[in-house]
Protein backbone atom coordinates (compact mmCIF):
# COMPACT_ATOMS: atom_id res chain seq x y z
CA UNK A 1 0.00 0.00 0.00
CA UNK A 2 1.32 3.40 -1.00
CA UNK A 3 -0.28 6.66 0.03
CA UNK A 4 0.43 10.30 -0.81
CA UNK A 5 -0.23 12.99 1.72
CA UNK A 6 0.74 16.50 2.65
CA UNK A 7 2.56 17.13 5.89
CA UNK A 8 0.69 19.71 7.97
CA UNK A 9 3.31 19.97 10.71
CA UNK A 10 4.77 23.24 9.41
CA UNK A 11 4.02 25.82 6.69
CA UNK A 12 6.33 24.16 4.16
CA UNK A 13 3.72 21.46 3.47
CA UNK A 14 5.97 18.70 2.08
CA UNK A 15 4.38 16.15 -0.24
CA UNK A 16 4.97 12.81 1.46
CA UNK A 17 4.67 9.24 0.25
CA UNK A 18 4.26 6.44 2.73
CA UNK A 19 4.23 2.70 2.19
CA UNK A 20 4.33 -0.20 4.62
CA UNK A 21 7.51 -2.27 4.58
CA UNK A 22 7.42 -5.05 7.16
CA UNK A 23 4.80 -5.24 9.92
CA UNK A 24 5.00 -2.02 11.90
CA UNK A 25 7.67 -0.59 9.62
CA UNK A 26 7.08 2.28 7.26
CA UNK A 27 8.90 3.83 4.36
CA UNK A 28 8.39 7.56 4.14
CA UNK A 29 9.76 9.82 1.43
CA UNK A 30 9.43 13.47 0.53
CA UNK A 31 9.82 14.73 4.09
CA UNK A 32 12.40 17.44 4.61
CA UNK A 33 12.70 16.88 8.33
CA UNK A 34 12.07 14.05 10.83
CA UNK A 35 8.70 15.48 11.87
CA UNK A 36 7.38 14.61 8.42
CA UNK A 37 8.10 10.93 8.91
CA UNK A 38 6.43 10.99 12.29
CA UNK A 39 3.41 12.76 10.80
CA UNK A 40 3.08 10.29 7.91
CA UNK A 41 3.14 7.27 10.22
CA UNK A 42 0.67 8.91 12.58
CA UNK A 43 -1.59 9.74 9.62
CA UNK A 44 -1.42 6.17 8.27
CA UNK A 45 -2.08 4.50 11.61
CA UNK A 46 -4.09 6.93 13.72
CA UNK A 47 -4.92 10.26 12.03
CA UNK A 48 -5.39 13.14 14.45
CA UNK A 49 -6.31 16.83 14.29
CA UNK A 50 -6.30 19.71 16.70
CA UNK A 51 -9.88 20.74 17.35
CA UNK A 52 -10.94 24.32 18.00
CA UNK A 53 -14.55 25.45 18.29
CA UNK A 54 -16.90 28.11 19.60
CA UNK A 55 -19.36 26.73 22.17
CA UNK A 56 -22.74 28.48 22.52
CA UNK A 57 -23.43 30.36 25.74
CA UNK A 58 -26.65 31.24 27.51
CA UNK A 59 -25.63 34.70 28.64
CA UNK A 60 -26.77 38.14 27.44
CA UNK A 61 -24.17 39.80 25.24
CA UNK A 62 -21.76 36.84 25.24
CA UNK A 63 -22.79 34.50 22.43
CA UNK A 64 -20.07 31.86 22.73
CA UNK A 65 -16.80 30.69 24.26
CA UNK A 66 -13.75 29.51 22.34
CA UNK A 67 -12.30 26.13 23.22
CA UNK A 68 -9.63 23.74 21.97
CA UNK A 69 -8.36 20.22 22.49
CA UNK A 70 -5.24 19.88 24.64
CA UNK A 71 -3.56 17.89 21.85
CA UNK A 72 -4.50 16.47 18.44
CA UNK A 73 -7.55 14.25 18.70
CA UNK A 74 -8.30 11.02 16.76
CA UNK A 75 -10.28 12.16 13.74
CA UNK A 76 -13.02 9.58 14.38
CA UNK A 77 -13.80 11.17 17.75
CA UNK A 78 -14.37 14.64 16.31
CA UNK A 79 -17.96 14.54 14.95
CA UNK A 80 -19.55 13.37 18.21
CA UNK A 81 -17.45 15.82 20.17
CA UNK A 82 -18.64 18.69 17.97
CA UNK A 83 -22.26 17.61 18.47
CA UNK A 84 -21.77 17.55 22.21
CA UNK A 85 -20.11 20.97 22.22
CA UNK A 86 -22.76 22.60 20.04
CA UNK A 87 -25.58 21.28 22.28
CA UNK A 88 -24.06 22.93 25.35
CA UNK A 89 -25.32 26.29 26.64
CA UNK A 90 -22.59 27.64 28.87
CA UNK A 91 -23.42 29.98 31.74
CA UNK A 92 -20.67 29.51 34.35
CA UNK A 93 -17.60 31.76 34.25
CA UNK A 94 -14.35 30.04 33.30
CA UNK A 95 -10.71 31.05 32.97
CA UNK A 96 -8.45 30.40 30.01
CA UNK A 97 -7.10 26.87 30.46
CA UNK A 98 -10.04 25.60 32.56
CA UNK A 99 -11.28 22.16 31.52
CA UNK A 100 -14.69 21.99 29.85
CA UNK A 101 -14.70 18.26 29.02
CA UNK A 102 -12.15 15.99 30.68
CA UNK A 103 -10.66 12.94 29.00
CA UNK A 104 -13.01 12.85 25.99
CA UNK A 105 -13.97 9.22 25.22
CA UNK A 106 -10.99 8.00 27.25
CA UNK A 107 -8.60 9.56 24.75
CA UNK A 108 -6.67 11.25 27.54
CA UNK A 109 -7.41 14.55 25.79
CA UNK A 110 -9.31 17.38 27.43
CA UNK A 111 -11.30 20.21 25.89
CA UNK A 112 -10.24 23.46 27.51
CA UNK A 113 -11.25 27.11 27.30
CA UNK A 114 -8.85 29.06 25.07
CA UNK A 115 -10.06 32.43 26.41
CA UNK A 116 -11.59 33.69 29.65
CA UNK A 117 -15.37 33.24 29.54
CA UNK A 118 -17.48 35.88 31.32
Amino acid at each position, binding site marked *: MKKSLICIS*CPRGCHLEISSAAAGEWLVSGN*QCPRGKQYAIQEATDPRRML*TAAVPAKVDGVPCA*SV*RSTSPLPVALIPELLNTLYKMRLDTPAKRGDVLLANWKDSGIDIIFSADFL
Partner: protein
Amino acid sequence: MIEYIKRDVAVIGAGAAGLFAAAETMKGGCSTIVIDREQRAGGILNQCIHNGFGLHCFKEELTGPEFAAKAFELARSADAEFRFGTTVRSIKRNDDGTFTLEMLSRAHGVTLLDCKAVIMAVGCRERNRGNLAVPGRRPAGVWTAGTAQKLLNIEGVIPGKSAVIVGSGDIGLIMARRMSWCGVKVQAVIEIMPRPSGLVRNIAQCLDDFNIPLHLSHQVVNIHGTEHVTGVDAAPLVDGKPDMENIKHFDCDTILFSVGLVPSNELMLPLGVEIDPNTGGAKVDSNGETNVPGIFVAGNALHVHDLVDFVAEEAAETAHAVVRKLNGTAPCPRYAANTRNNLRYVAPLKFASGEKIHFRFRPTITCEKAILTACDAGGNEIKRWTKMFVCPAEMIQIELDAPGSDITFNLEEVK
Protein backbone atom coordinates in the same frame (compact mmCIF):
# COMPACT_ATOMS: atom_id res chain seq x y z
CA MET B 1 -16.22 68.70 28.21
CA ILE B 2 -13.06 67.87 26.35
CA GLU B 3 -10.45 65.81 28.14
CA TYR B 4 -6.79 66.72 27.57
CA ILE B 5 -4.00 64.22 28.22
CA LYS B 6 -0.32 64.00 27.39
CA ARG B 7 1.95 60.96 26.94
CA ASP B 8 5.27 60.30 25.22
CA VAL B 9 3.96 57.66 22.84
CA ALA B 10 0.51 56.84 21.46
CA VAL B 11 -0.01 53.36 20.07
CA ILE B 12 -3.13 53.10 17.92
CA GLY B 13 -4.43 49.52 17.93
CA ALA B 14 -4.18 46.87 20.66
CA GLY B 15 -3.61 43.91 18.33
CA ALA B 16 -0.42 41.87 18.36
CA ALA B 17 1.59 44.78 16.92
CA GLY B 18 0.29 47.38 19.37
CA LEU B 19 0.74 45.14 22.41
CA PHE B 20 4.35 44.23 21.63
CA ALA B 21 5.20 47.81 20.69
CA ALA B 22 3.74 49.22 23.91
CA ALA B 23 5.56 46.70 26.10
CA GLU B 24 8.88 47.80 24.57
CA THR B 25 8.34 51.59 24.62
CA MET B 26 7.35 51.28 28.30
CA LYS B 27 10.47 49.25 29.05
CA GLY B 28 12.44 51.99 27.27
CA GLY B 29 11.08 54.55 29.74
CA CYS B 30 8.48 56.26 27.51
CA SER B 31 4.99 56.76 28.93
CA THR B 32 2.72 54.91 26.51
CA ILE B 33 -1.01 54.79 25.95
CA VAL B 34 -2.64 52.15 23.73
CA ILE B 35 -5.94 53.04 22.11
CA ASP B 36 -8.35 50.56 20.55
CA ARG B 37 -11.89 50.98 19.35
CA GLU B 38 -12.76 47.45 20.48
CA GLN B 39 -13.55 46.67 24.11
CA ARG B 40 -10.61 44.33 24.53
CA ALA B 41 -7.05 43.69 23.44
CA GLY B 42 -6.01 41.26 20.71
CA GLY B 43 -7.40 42.72 17.49
CA ILE B 44 -7.87 40.15 14.76
CA LEU B 45 -6.44 37.42 17.02
CA ASN B 46 -9.70 37.23 18.98
CA GLN B 47 -11.60 35.90 16.01
CA CYS B 48 -8.84 33.47 14.97
CA ILE B 49 -9.84 30.70 17.37
CA HIS B 50 -7.81 28.13 15.43
CA ASN B 51 -4.34 27.07 16.56
CA GLY B 52 -1.09 27.99 14.81
CA PHE B 53 0.09 31.10 16.62
CA GLY B 54 3.16 31.85 18.67
CA LEU B 55 5.61 29.02 17.93
CA HIS B 56 8.52 31.51 17.74
CA CYS B 57 7.40 34.08 20.32
CA PHE B 58 6.12 31.89 23.11
CA LYS B 59 7.62 28.54 22.07
CA GLU B 60 4.25 26.85 22.04
CA GLU B 61 1.44 26.52 19.56
CA LEU B 62 -1.43 28.70 20.68
CA THR B 63 -4.84 29.74 19.40
CA GLY B 64 -5.38 33.39 18.49
CA PRO B 65 -7.15 34.32 21.77
CA GLU B 66 -4.42 32.60 23.80
CA PHE B 67 -1.70 34.53 21.97
CA ALA B 68 -3.68 37.74 22.54
CA ALA B 69 -3.99 37.07 26.28
CA LYS B 70 -0.26 36.46 26.63
CA ALA B 71 0.67 39.55 24.62
CA PHE B 72 -1.77 41.67 26.64
CA GLU B 73 -0.17 40.38 29.82
CA LEU B 74 3.28 41.42 28.53
CA ALA B 75 2.10 44.96 27.83
CA ARG B 76 0.22 45.23 31.11
CA SER B 77 3.10 43.97 33.19
CA ALA B 78 5.23 46.69 31.55
CA ASP B 79 2.60 49.15 32.88
CA ALA B 80 1.30 50.33 29.52
CA GLU B 81 -1.95 52.25 29.82
CA PHE B 82 -5.02 51.20 27.81
CA ARG B 83 -8.07 52.99 26.46
CA PHE B 84 -10.59 50.55 25.02
CA GLY B 85 -13.82 51.41 23.24
CA THR B 86 -11.99 54.47 21.94
CA THR B 87 -11.61 55.42 18.29
CA VAL B 88 -8.89 57.70 17.00
CA ARG B 89 -10.60 60.04 14.58
CA SER B 90 -7.71 62.16 13.42
CA ILE B 91 -4.05 62.92 13.93
CA LYS B 92 -2.78 66.49 13.76
CA ARG B 93 0.87 67.38 13.47
CA ASN B 94 1.74 70.45 15.53
CA ASP B 95 4.28 73.11 14.59
CA ASP B 96 6.73 71.86 17.24
CA GLY B 97 6.71 68.35 15.71
CA THR B 98 4.43 66.81 18.36
CA PHE B 99 1.02 65.32 17.54
CA THR B 100 -2.50 65.77 18.79
CA LEU B 101 -4.84 62.82 18.46
CA GLU B 102 -8.56 63.38 18.54
CA MET B 103 -10.24 60.37 20.08
CA LEU B 104 -13.82 59.51 20.81
CA SER B 105 -15.22 57.16 23.43
CA ARG B 106 -18.42 56.56 25.29
CA ALA B 107 -16.62 56.81 28.63
CA HIS B 108 -14.76 60.08 28.05
CA GLY B 109 -16.43 61.73 25.08
CA VAL B 110 -13.84 63.68 23.13
CA THR B 111 -10.24 63.34 24.28
CA LEU B 112 -7.29 65.28 22.88
CA LEU B 113 -4.04 63.44 23.39
CA ASP B 114 -0.69 65.16 22.92
CA CYS B 115 2.28 62.92 22.20
CA LYS B 116 5.76 62.97 20.71
CA ALA B 117 5.46 59.84 18.59
CA VAL B 118 2.63 57.73 17.18
CA ILE B 119 2.89 54.02 16.42
CA MET B 120 0.27 53.05 13.88
CA ALA B 121 -0.70 49.45 14.70
CA VAL B 122 -4.15 49.66 13.14
CA GLY B 123 -4.02 46.39 11.19
CA CYS B 124 -5.48 45.78 7.75
CA ARG B 125 -8.81 45.52 6.04
CA GLU B 126 -10.22 42.93 3.64
CA ARG B 127 -10.66 43.43 -0.03
CA ASN B 128 -14.28 42.82 -0.87
CA ARG B 129 -16.41 42.06 -3.84
CA GLY B 130 -16.62 45.75 -4.73
CA ASN B 131 -12.86 45.80 -5.26
CA LEU B 132 -13.21 42.86 -7.65
CA ALA B 133 -16.15 44.11 -9.67
CA VAL B 134 -17.94 40.75 -9.72
CA PRO B 135 -21.05 40.95 -11.86
CA GLY B 136 -24.49 39.94 -10.61
CA ARG B 137 -26.94 41.30 -8.10
CA ARG B 138 -26.23 42.44 -4.57
CA PRO B 139 -28.31 39.93 -2.55
CA ALA B 140 -27.80 39.17 1.15
CA GLY B 141 -25.53 36.25 1.99
CA VAL B 142 -22.32 37.64 0.52
CA TRP B 143 -19.60 38.16 3.10
CA THR B 144 -15.89 38.66 3.30
CA ALA B 145 -14.20 35.66 4.92
CA GLY B 146 -13.04 37.76 7.87
CA THR B 147 -16.52 39.12 8.55
CA ALA B 148 -17.90 35.58 8.45
CA GLN B 149 -15.13 34.51 10.82
CA LYS B 150 -16.13 37.20 13.29
CA LEU B 151 -19.79 36.26 12.92
CA LEU B 152 -19.10 32.59 13.65
CA ASN B 153 -16.40 32.83 16.28
CA ILE B 154 -17.45 35.93 18.20
CA GLU B 155 -21.17 36.39 17.54
CA GLY B 156 -21.81 32.63 17.43
CA VAL B 157 -23.92 32.96 14.28
CA ILE B 158 -23.68 30.39 11.47
CA PRO B 159 -24.03 32.38 8.23
CA GLY B 160 -25.88 29.74 6.15
CA LYS B 161 -26.33 26.09 5.22
CA SER B 162 -24.27 25.80 2.08
CA ALA B 163 -21.43 27.98 0.94
CA VAL B 164 -19.02 28.74 -1.87
CA ILE B 165 -15.72 30.41 -1.10
CA VAL B 166 -14.18 32.76 -3.63
CA GLY B 167 -10.40 33.01 -3.36
CA SER B 168 -8.04 30.48 -1.83
CA GLY B 169 -6.31 32.72 0.69
CA ASP B 170 -5.61 31.22 4.10
CA ILE B 171 -8.54 32.97 5.78
CA GLY B 172 -10.94 31.45 3.25
CA LEU B 173 -9.40 27.99 3.70
CA ILE B 174 -9.59 28.20 7.48
CA MET B 175 -13.21 29.28 7.16
CA ALA B 176 -13.93 26.27 4.92
CA ARG B 177 -12.89 23.97 7.78
CA ARG B 178 -14.60 26.06 10.41
CA MET B 179 -17.90 26.04 8.52
CA SER B 180 -17.63 22.33 7.74
CA TRP B 181 -17.22 21.66 11.45
CA CYS B 182 -20.39 23.73 12.00
CA GLY B 183 -22.41 21.60 9.59
CA VAL B 184 -22.27 24.05 6.68
CA LYS B 185 -21.81 22.27 3.35
CA VAL B 186 -18.91 23.98 1.60
CA GLN B 187 -19.53 23.31 -2.10
CA ALA B 188 -16.31 24.60 -3.58
CA VAL B 189 -13.46 27.04 -3.43
CA ILE B 190 -12.99 29.08 -6.60
CA GLU B 191 -9.59 30.55 -7.39
CA ILE B 192 -8.82 32.72 -10.39
CA MET B 193 -5.08 31.93 -10.36
CA PRO B 194 -3.60 28.60 -11.49
CA ARG B 195 -2.23 28.05 -7.95
CA PRO B 196 -3.86 28.30 -4.56
CA SER B 197 -2.86 31.51 -2.76
CA GLY B 198 -2.96 29.90 0.70
CA LEU B 199 -0.51 27.40 2.16
CA VAL B 200 -0.67 23.78 0.93
CA ARG B 201 -1.01 22.59 4.50
CA ASN B 202 -4.26 24.55 4.70
CA ILE B 203 -5.44 22.97 1.44
CA ALA B 204 -4.73 19.58 3.06
CA GLN B 205 -6.28 20.14 6.46
CA CYS B 206 -9.08 22.54 5.54
CA LEU B 207 -10.23 21.30 2.10
CA ASP B 208 -9.00 17.73 1.52
CA ASP B 209 -10.11 16.61 4.99
CA PHE B 210 -13.68 17.56 4.06
CA ASN B 211 -13.55 16.64 0.33
CA ILE B 212 -14.08 20.24 -0.71
CA PRO B 213 -13.12 20.74 -4.37
CA LEU B 214 -10.75 23.55 -5.31
CA HIS B 215 -11.37 24.97 -8.79
CA LEU B 216 -8.20 26.71 -9.93
CA SER B 217 -8.14 29.09 -12.91
CA HIS B 218 -11.85 29.76 -12.48
CA GLN B 219 -13.58 33.08 -12.28
CA VAL B 220 -16.91 33.98 -10.70
CA VAL B 221 -19.09 35.24 -13.52
CA ASN B 222 -22.49 35.56 -11.84
CA ILE B 223 -24.15 35.60 -8.45
CA HIS B 224 -27.78 34.44 -8.38
CA GLY B 225 -30.59 35.52 -6.05
CA THR B 226 -32.74 38.60 -5.58
CA GLU B 227 -33.19 38.99 -1.83
CA HIS B 228 -30.78 36.27 -0.77
CA VAL B 229 -28.03 34.39 -2.57
CA THR B 230 -29.25 31.22 -4.28
CA GLY B 231 -26.15 30.27 -6.24
CA VAL B 232 -23.04 31.26 -8.04
CA ASP B 233 -21.58 30.60 -11.51
CA ALA B 234 -17.90 30.12 -12.22
CA ALA B 235 -16.23 29.78 -15.58
CA PRO B 236 -12.86 28.23 -16.36
CA LEU B 237 -10.30 30.64 -17.73
CA VAL B 238 -9.06 29.91 -21.21
CA ASP B 239 -6.27 32.20 -22.40
CA GLY B 240 -7.11 34.53 -19.54
CA LYS B 241 -10.79 34.85 -20.52
CA PRO B 242 -13.76 33.11 -18.89
CA ASP B 243 -15.08 30.30 -21.09
CA MET B 244 -18.83 30.98 -20.93
CA GLU B 245 -19.65 27.69 -22.68
CA ASN B 246 -18.43 25.67 -19.71
CA ILE B 247 -19.91 27.43 -16.73
CA LYS B 248 -20.16 25.51 -13.46
CA HIS B 249 -23.16 26.33 -11.32
CA PHE B 250 -23.21 25.90 -7.55
CA ASP B 251 -26.34 26.15 -5.41
CA CYS B 252 -25.56 27.94 -2.16
CA ASP B 253 -27.00 30.47 0.27
CA THR B 254 -23.67 31.94 1.32
CA ILE B 255 -20.66 33.27 -0.56
CA LEU B 256 -17.43 34.19 1.17
CA PHE B 257 -14.82 36.35 -0.51
CA SER B 258 -11.28 35.66 0.63
CA VAL B 259 -9.40 37.79 -1.82
CA GLY B 260 -6.69 39.47 0.12
CA LEU B 261 -5.96 42.11 2.70
CA VAL B 262 -4.72 45.69 2.45
CA PRO B 263 -3.09 47.75 5.20
CA SER B 264 -5.32 50.42 6.75
CA ASN B 265 -3.82 53.81 6.10
CA GLU B 266 -6.72 56.29 6.19
CA LEU B 267 -5.57 58.01 9.39
CA MET B 268 -2.11 58.69 7.98
CA LEU B 269 -3.02 59.98 4.54
CA PRO B 270 -4.02 63.51 5.63
CA LEU B 271 -0.57 63.87 7.24
CA GLY B 272 1.08 63.35 3.87
CA VAL B 273 2.49 59.90 4.66
CA GLU B 274 3.82 58.27 1.49
CA ILE B 275 2.34 54.89 0.56
CA ASP B 276 4.23 52.04 -1.09
CA PRO B 277 1.98 50.81 -3.92
CA ASN B 278 3.52 47.33 -3.58
CA THR B 279 2.42 46.80 0.02
CA GLY B 280 -0.48 49.24 0.24
CA GLY B 281 1.09 50.40 3.51
CA ALA B 282 3.33 53.32 4.34
CA LYS B 283 6.91 53.55 3.11
CA VAL B 284 9.13 53.20 6.18
CA ASP B 285 12.81 53.21 7.03
CA SER B 286 14.67 50.83 9.29
CA ASN B 287 13.32 52.71 12.32
CA GLY B 288 9.80 51.86 11.16
CA GLU B 289 9.32 55.60 10.62
CA THR B 290 7.42 57.14 7.70
CA ASN B 291 8.41 60.25 5.77
CA VAL B 292 6.52 62.22 8.45
CA PRO B 293 8.92 62.34 11.41
CA GLY B 294 7.29 60.87 14.52
CA ILE B 295 4.81 58.63 12.66
CA PHE B 296 5.82 54.96 12.89
CA VAL B 297 4.00 51.91 11.50
CA ALA B 298 4.14 48.21 12.42
CA GLY B 299 2.29 44.94 11.86
CA ASN B 300 -0.46 44.48 9.30
CA ALA B 301 -0.81 48.25 9.03
CA LEU B 302 2.62 48.24 7.39
CA HIS B 303 2.40 45.14 5.22
CA VAL B 304 0.17 42.10 5.51
CA HIS B 305 1.80 39.37 7.59
CA ASP B 306 0.99 35.68 7.66
CA LEU B 307 2.74 34.97 10.96
CA VAL B 308 1.90 36.81 14.14
CA ASP B 309 5.42 36.09 15.44
CA PHE B 310 6.88 38.34 12.75
CA VAL B 311 4.29 41.01 13.61
CA ALA B 312 5.45 40.89 17.21
CA GLU B 313 9.12 41.07 16.30
CA GLU B 314 8.65 43.93 13.84
CA ALA B 315 6.58 45.92 16.35
CA ALA B 316 9.14 45.43 19.11
CA GLU B 317 11.94 46.61 16.80
CA THR B 318 9.95 49.68 15.82
CA ALA B 319 9.30 50.42 19.50
CA HIS B 320 13.04 50.27 20.21
CA ALA B 321 13.62 52.77 17.41
CA VAL B 322 10.93 55.05 18.84
CA VAL B 323 12.67 55.02 22.21
CA ARG B 324 16.01 55.86 20.59
CA LYS B 325 14.39 58.56 18.52
CA LEU B 326 12.92 60.21 21.62
CA ASN B 327 16.29 59.93 23.36
CA GLY B 328 18.00 61.45 20.34
CA THR B 329 20.11 58.34 19.70
CA ALA B 330 18.35 56.86 16.68
CA PRO B 331 20.52 56.21 13.62
CA CYS B 332 19.76 58.10 10.45
CA PRO B 333 18.60 55.78 7.67
CA ARG B 334 19.79 57.13 4.35
CA TYR B 335 20.58 54.14 2.16
CA ALA B 336 17.93 52.65 -0.12
CA ALA B 337 16.80 49.01 -0.33
CA ASN B 338 15.56 47.92 -3.74
CA THR B 339 14.26 44.68 -5.21
CA ARG B 340 14.98 43.15 -8.59
CA ASN B 341 13.45 39.80 -9.57
CA ASN B 342 10.69 37.75 -7.97
CA LEU B 343 10.11 39.97 -4.94
CA ARG B 344 6.91 41.96 -4.69
CA TYR B 345 8.32 44.31 -2.06
CA VAL B 346 10.91 44.89 0.61
CA ALA B 347 10.35 46.62 3.95
CA PRO B 348 12.04 48.79 5.11
CA LEU B 349 12.89 50.81 2.02
CA LYS B 350 15.62 52.87 3.70
CA PHE B 351 18.15 51.83 6.29
CA ALA B 352 21.00 53.01 8.47
CA SER B 353 24.42 51.43 8.00
CA GLY B 354 26.19 49.59 10.77
CA GLU B 355 22.98 48.20 12.25
CA LYS B 356 21.65 44.65 12.29
CA ILE B 357 18.47 44.98 10.28
CA HIS B 358 15.62 42.66 9.46
CA PHE B 359 14.39 42.97 5.91
CA ARG B 360 11.03 41.46 5.03
CA PHE B 361 9.86 40.40 1.58
CA ARG B 362 6.98 38.82 -0.29
CA PRO B 363 8.13 36.50 -3.08
CA THR B 364 6.10 36.32 -6.28
CA ILE B 365 7.22 32.78 -7.15
CA THR B 366 6.63 29.31 -5.73
CA CYS B 367 9.57 26.93 -5.74
CA GLU B 368 11.32 24.28 -3.67
CA LYS B 369 14.59 26.12 -3.41
CA ALA B 370 15.69 29.67 -4.08
CA ILE B 371 18.67 31.92 -3.52
CA LEU B 372 18.20 35.39 -2.15
CA THR B 373 21.12 37.76 -2.69
CA ALA B 374 21.94 41.25 -1.48
CA CYS B 375 24.21 43.34 -3.72
CA ASP B 376 25.69 46.75 -2.99
CA ALA B 377 25.47 49.77 -5.28
CA GLY B 378 28.47 48.52 -7.27
CA GLY B 379 26.71 45.22 -7.97
CA ASN B 380 28.97 43.24 -5.60
CA GLU B 381 27.30 40.48 -3.66
CA ILE B 382 27.31 41.19 0.08
CA LYS B 383 25.48 38.14 1.29
CA ARG B 384 23.34 35.25 0.07
CA TRP B 385 20.73 33.07 1.71
CA THR B 386 19.41 29.72 0.55
CA LYS B 387 15.67 29.53 1.08
CA MET B 388 13.96 26.16 1.05
CA PHE B 389 10.39 26.35 -0.18
CA VAL B 390 9.37 29.80 -1.20
CA CYS B 391 5.80 30.90 -1.96
CA PRO B 392 3.76 34.12 -2.06
CA ALA B 393 1.71 32.98 0.95
CA GLU B 394 4.80 33.16 3.14
CA MET B 395 6.74 36.27 4.01
CA ILE B 396 10.53 35.97 3.93
CA GLN B 397 12.58 37.60 6.68
CA ILE B 398 16.36 37.91 6.75
CA GLU B 399 18.86 39.67 8.99
CA LEU B 400 21.71 41.72 7.54
CA ASP B 401 24.57 43.81 8.95
CA ALA B 402 23.63 46.81 6.90
CA PRO B 403 26.41 48.17 4.69
CA GLY B 404 27.11 51.83 3.92
CA SER B 405 25.67 51.54 0.45
CA ASP B 406 22.32 51.10 -1.24
CA ILE B 407 21.34 47.44 -1.61
CA THR B 408 19.43 45.49 -4.22
CA PHE B 409 17.80 42.22 -3.24
CA ASN B 410 17.19 39.53 -5.81
CA LEU B 411 15.47 36.15 -5.59
CA GLU B 412 16.15 33.36 -8.08
CA GLU B 413 14.83 29.83 -8.23
CA VAL B 414 17.39 27.02 -8.00
CA LYS B 415 16.43 24.22 -10.37
